[in-house]
């Protein structure tokens, strides 16, 4: 069966699953951040996504834009650090672009995610190879778009995105950081996976998983 749309419920499930994954991987994310940052990425993401899901549960969103704008605002106001504004802006833009709808079709989702990426770039000025979450987000969305050229099945596009995300995440290991905290380490940033890249990979894992599940 081809899933060529994604529902508000599924999108809500995506965020919930992302919360679960960052919570499960809290120590892993923090260990990555210990090596080249300040040892808080796991707790930042867990705190932020915890607040997002709490908010959703307390007052479920009626439309896709409401869902993601709420998530974005919650991240912006509960995380702080670099990841708060970046993930926050990502979801805010996703919401704005998606609009007040109940369901997204494949191109609609792709456009929303792409707007999210643009927001991250506008905020953080990261470029490819800077060793940031950009290095997962960009190739994952490219893979998502490419998959949609072949088939409108969101589930397999999400699978392709997740696969590209993992590759992108692992590729950050060899990079010298030019943005964020890891850049202070210079050459010593090489040899470690970027924590934000790892959490962004979890974001695509969550999307792939909730679509497969159903």
């Amino acid at each position, binding site marked *: 069966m081809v899933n060529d749309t994604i529902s508000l419920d599924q999108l809500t499930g995506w965020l919930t699953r992302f919360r679960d994954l960052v919570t499960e991987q809290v120590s892993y994310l923090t260990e990555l951040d210990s090596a080249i940052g300040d040892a808080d990425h796991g*707790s930042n993401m867990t705190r932020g996504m915890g607040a997002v899901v709490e908010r959703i549960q307390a007052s479920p969103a009626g439309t896709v834009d409401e869902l993601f704008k709420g998530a974005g605002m919650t991240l*912006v106001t509960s995380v702080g650090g670099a990841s708060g504004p970046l993930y926050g802006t990502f979801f805010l833009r996703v919401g704005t672009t998606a609009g007040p709808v109940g369901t997204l079709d494949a191109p609609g989702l792709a456009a929303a995610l792409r707007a999210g990426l643009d927001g991250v770039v506008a905020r953080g000025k990261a470029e490819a190879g800077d060793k940031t979450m950009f290095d997962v987000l960009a190739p994952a969305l490219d893979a998502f778009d490419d998959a949609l050229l072949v088939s409108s099945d969101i589930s397999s596009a999400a699978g392709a995105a997740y696969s590209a995300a993992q590759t992108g995440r692992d590729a950050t290991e060899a990079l010298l950081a030019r943005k964020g905290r890891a850049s202070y380490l210079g050459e*010593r940033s090489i040899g470690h996976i970027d924590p934000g890249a790892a959490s962004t990979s979890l974001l695509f894992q969550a999307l792939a998983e909730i679509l497969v599940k159903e």
Partner: protein
Amino acid sequence: MKKLINSPETVLADSLVGVAAAHPELRVDHVNRIIYRAAPTRAGKVALLSGGGTGHEPLHGGFVGVGMLDAACAGAVFTSPTPDQMLEATKVVDSGAGVLHIVKNYTGDVMNFEMGAELAAETGIVVSVVVVNDDVAVEDSTFTAGRRGVGTTVLLEKIVGAAAEEGRDLAAVTAVARQVNESGRSMGVALSSCTVPSAGKPTFELPENEMEIGVGIHGEPGRRRVPLAGAAEVARQLVEPILADLDFTGAPTIVMLNGLGGTPLIELYVMYAEVRKILDAAGITVARSLVGNYITALDMAGCSVTILKADDDLLHLWDAPVNTAGLRWGI
């Protein structure tokens, strides 16, 4: 992890309760996690707002008070506060004369303060920003995150606080802030990492015979790991890159020997003695000194040196009365 806390999640909230209890001259907004002076900003006085992740105490909350900051926003440990905090604080402290945001140059702090300032601007408040980036351990480049903001932040908050207290306007206050940032340089060393409460263990392990040179204030590894050395040699490794970066001769300087949280005062004085020997030999005039824990990284063992090239105006502002939990004189 051994800490005098109730739980990693409540460190910030609990410590703010302690701050409120210990300092009747401050007012703590526990919901928004903002520390204010108890008295509102005097009409016409430019307000100074700073903030940052928790774990650098006394920075910034300990520098709220007459002659320094009007308010400080507190984030989670090593995590910038959020834009809504900056918006709220900016609204509260503005007396109409505008608000200067003092931001340490970290991606998170810069982005969150930026968003906060955008929101504040929408309400019609005039916000001016200074981003402190004084850490010579980090190479400066517009293609990277640039230099970290470290020790100069302390001197800047004091000096600029005095300028605002004198009644200088926002442009003038901002100009002083820029001058201090451009004239201050810092470099740090760690003998141990620190333990972020939520991480539960030290950010990195350092063998008995090694130290990290070029660390910031977040318990992170530094630029390079080198053999542990005596105080004189450590001082040399800290001061030389500072002197190589800016010419400090021919002007009075303010020198801070800052502890990173886990190093006792006696070692800071030993280090200060060595720093002074190097500065004396380099023909640098030290007009004012500050030795102690002012901008810390939780329980990290180590210290940093900050040297600020001053002039008559900056010295005059430095000497002006200040009444905060972390710095106090003349009042």
